[in-house]
């Protein structure tokens, strides 16, 4: 089976206010999808709903992930099943070391998959190998999770977690925000190295620049909680040039899925 994720007519609200108003999207293994759109269009909401953020209420629709009903799973179950979200604003956890946190997360997943758990020494070796991928210094492992990290360090730490947990579906929520050009390159290269034909990546971003490094197979443009335009990687360049304003006049298209294929704009 080639299909990783299928979102059907997804509606979601926060505090009674509807943000997503009928999202349809299909993601196959090996694909990279970019979700773009102006501020407030629902991009980050889509990412959080996929990860199971408790503040959002799904009011209609369904999400099938790897043949299972994703919306029925708790956030931790989704994570153990291979769904990963890189946070736009990674959270600080004072007093808990990065290494301690990551080993706990790693072992939870291993346990879930019926695979061997690692003791602190074995895990240290694994962590060292993964940290090299995002050019992170070993000193970060003993520090409290994200506490006192710079914006760029926090984002690299997210990709380190992605590397350790080896997810099937990764959702990167505005991972490029607040990154300088060098950090952007390191983060993007990390994501690319982790990608393979059995995994899928959804990149949520406002700007095109991240997509120079992580090249999408498909670009979807969100406006007011619906996908209003879809295309290949060239659509991102078009948006970069024209901005989002011209899309305001585009009527939201009917569900852009026909016969299991994404309809190219």
């Amino acid at each position: 089976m080639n299909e990783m994720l299928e979102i059907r007519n997804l509606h979601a609200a926060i505090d009674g206010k509807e943000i997503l108003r009928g999202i349809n999207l299909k993601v196959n293994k090996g694909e990279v999808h970019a979700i773009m759109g102006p501020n407030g269009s629902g991009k980050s909401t889509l990412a959080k709903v996929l990860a199971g953020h408790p503040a959002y209420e799904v009011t209609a629709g369904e999400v099938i992930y790897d043949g299972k009903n994703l919306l029925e799973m708790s956030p931790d179950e989704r994570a153990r099943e291979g769904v990963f979200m890189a946070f736009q604003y990674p959270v600080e956890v004072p007093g808990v070391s990065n290494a301690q946190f990551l080993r706990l997360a790693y072992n939870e997943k291993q346990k879930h998959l019926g695979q061997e758990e690692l003791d602190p020494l074995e895990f240290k070796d694994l962590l060292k190998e993964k940290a090299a991928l995002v050019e992170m210094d070993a000193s970060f492992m003993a520090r409290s999770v994200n506490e006192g990290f710079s914006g760029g360090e926090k984002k690299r730490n997210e990709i380190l977690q992605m590397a350790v947990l080896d997810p099937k579906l990764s959702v990167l929520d505005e991972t490029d925000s607040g990154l300088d050009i060098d950090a952007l390159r390191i983060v993007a290269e990390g994501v690319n190295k982790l990608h393979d034909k059995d995994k899928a990546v959804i990149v949520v971003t406002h700007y095109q620049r991240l997509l120079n490094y992580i090249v999408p197979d498909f670009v979807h443009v969100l406006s007011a909680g619906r996908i209003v335009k879809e295309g290949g990687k060239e659509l991102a360049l078009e948006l970069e040039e024209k901005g989002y304003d011209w899309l305001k006049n585009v009527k939201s298209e009917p569900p852009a899925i026909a016969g299991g294929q994404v309809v190219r704009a």
Partner: protein
Amino acid sequence: MGTAEILANREYKYGWVTDIESETIPRGLNEDTVRLISAKKHEPEWMLEFRLKAYRHWLTMKEPRNWPNIEFPEVDYQDIIYYSAPKQKAEKASLDEVDPELLRTFEKLGIPLAEQKQLAGVAVDAVFDSVSVATTYKEKLKKHGVIFCSFSEAVREHPELVRKYLGSVVPTNDNFFAALNSAVFSDGSFCFIPTGVRCPMELSTYFRINNSESGQFERTLIVAEEGAYVSYLEGCTAPQFDRNQLHAAVVELVALDDAEIKYSTVQNWYAGDETGKGGIYNFVTKRGKCAGRNSKISWTQVETGSAITWKYPSCILLGDNSIGEFYSVALTNHAQEADTGTKMIHLGKNTRSTIVSKGISAGHANNSYRGLVKVMPRAENARNYTQCDSMLIGSNCSANTFPYIEVMNDSSQVEHEASTSKISEEQLFYLMQRGISHEDAVSLIINGFCKDVFLQLPMEFAVEATRLLGLKLEGAVG
């Protein structure tokens, strides 16, 4: 969003009762009760005098009801049994003669007393209701000159030491509960580390209240002579009863020149049910005196399990260059109340004190830190650093901080930092998004919050404390 629901706590694991025949005296308290307790223990005249003096003073005193931030119903002091002891042979030459039911009780609590099963590196004095039932590793400690025995035995075998130090830190008239304890205390532990000896193992007392109607009034006295060092651990549990039980202990520590005493407590008395029914009233006076130069006393406590906690482990920094430390985690859930903290009294020159207090409040609980830092006129260059952090779980609980600072010397430095935080939905979601369960995520955040205190605990205690906090908070964060 963000409303935390309070779900039922996991059942208290130590709530069972040992079925054992006990010798109890009639309930109630008067001078004859005091004489009877003293007679039962075959005490010398001076000990009886100590008790009577305390009792007579107690009659003139009142419970501390106005100033602490706790509320508790009238305690009927005539309705308490002041002495309850498991029936056993008068003199026990070895553990073989201890009632097997008692050994089983402590084994079930994770405190094996039989020689072949003893905890390596920890000597234990096991106190059951009013009496000490066994002390392990006594002979080994004796070789190093360390005395570690029940308080009753110390009164018999080492009267000169007991007489010299008993009441020297907490006088009989110190406060209502200390006076009550001084009058009726039945047993406890005595430790004496002679000059220059570094105690080769951790010393530990495990307190168990079994009888539903008896109070526990134990007395602990630890003396470290010049250059001596000891690390002492205290653990406690009680069965689950509907009625409240009174625990009024007194702990006195004395450190002479260059001596160091490290005192750690993991307290897990029965806290009562969700509505606040039952549980232990923990009114305890703990105080250490850094009597000598360069001496050091360190209190580390993890308080999780009383219906009411009223406790201020303190240091009197008399010797020049002496050091006092207080590291505390106090957790209250459901209807629990805690008013706890410390007093650091700086008397000597260059004395230093550190206070790190972590209060965690969940359910409808009420958690207060109350601390006094007092710098006396002679305490040149005294320093204090205080850090008080509170964490609230849910929106029906409360946390308070009452710092008292009295400085009478210009050359001293006193720092106070305080913070209040909540476990945020975002933190939990972040950890869960990485595959960590809700409960483990809460534990991880709480343990991170308490890290500075847990680092002070001996290894096994730190593991136990971590587990305990997770257990106590299960279901508290919705």
